[in-house]
């Protein structure tokens, strides 16, 4: 179980191998990768810059992981979130969950992303082809997705 905030890209298969190495109890691994799209609100996107709150970010991600461990039977989990300036097709975030069975792996992966999107202190600023920057607004849909888990 660990979290990382970094500027550099991540190696998905290398991270899965490290997370699952030597554990014969793991029968299922789920991954989610968030990526930078090449357009924003119908306009071409030149780049996206991610800002965060060092210290609080790691604390929130660890709290979200701890919550996932209470709710699901997990053998391991990993969250990596990139910061700095990223380009279209670049990776932004990686979540890996490992469990005995796929139900826990899938559900925990989705839970981690839903909570991360509404609690972890990251902010995206998009730059269009004209160079003008625009802070991304939070989406109501993200709140709705996170609230689904409240009754479970």
């Amino acid at each position, binding site marked *: 179980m660990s979290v990382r905030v970094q500027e550099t890209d991540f190696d998905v298969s290398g991270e899965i191998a490290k997370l699952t190495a030597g554990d014969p109890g793991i029968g299922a691994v789920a991954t989610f990768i*968030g990526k930078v799209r090449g357009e924003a609100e119908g306009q071409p996107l030149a780049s996206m810059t991610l800002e965060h709150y060092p210290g609080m970010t790691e604390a929130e991600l660890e709290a979200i992981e701890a919550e996932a461990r209470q709710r699901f039977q997990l053998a391991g989990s990993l969250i990596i979130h990139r910061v700095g300036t990223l380009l279209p097709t670049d990776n932004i975030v990686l979540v890996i969950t490992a469990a005995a069975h796929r139900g826990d792996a899938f559900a925990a992966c989705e839970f981690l992303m839903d909570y991360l999107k509404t609690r972890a202190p990251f902010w*995206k600023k998009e730059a269009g082809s004209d160079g003008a920057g625009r*802070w991304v607004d939070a989406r109501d849909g993200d709140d709705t997705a996170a609230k689904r888990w409240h009754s479970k």
Partner: protein
Amino acid sequence: MTISKLEFVTRSSGELMQETKVTAREVTLRYFAWVREKAGMGQERVTLPPHVETAADLIHWMQTRGPAFAAAFAEPGAIRVALDRVHVKPDTKIGTTREIAFFPPVTGG
């Protein structure tokens, strides 16, 4: 209001008096994303006035600290507050918090 310590003062008459000393609360304020850009700075040290007790009080006080802050804090509903790196609601008391952060709703992932 934070009462930092109680001091016992012995007067010339020998009478023991209890005096309550209220010290100013010095905190670090941090700003992120567009709040940082509008405020024109990432962080600063300030002394909070005694009437500022909750997160909502803080936002209203920030609006009075000059034109840049007035613009940054014009819409209290658009600002989120963290006390010592924990998300809080508007009615949360500031208490002995040392670091206060203001930012828009998060947009990571």
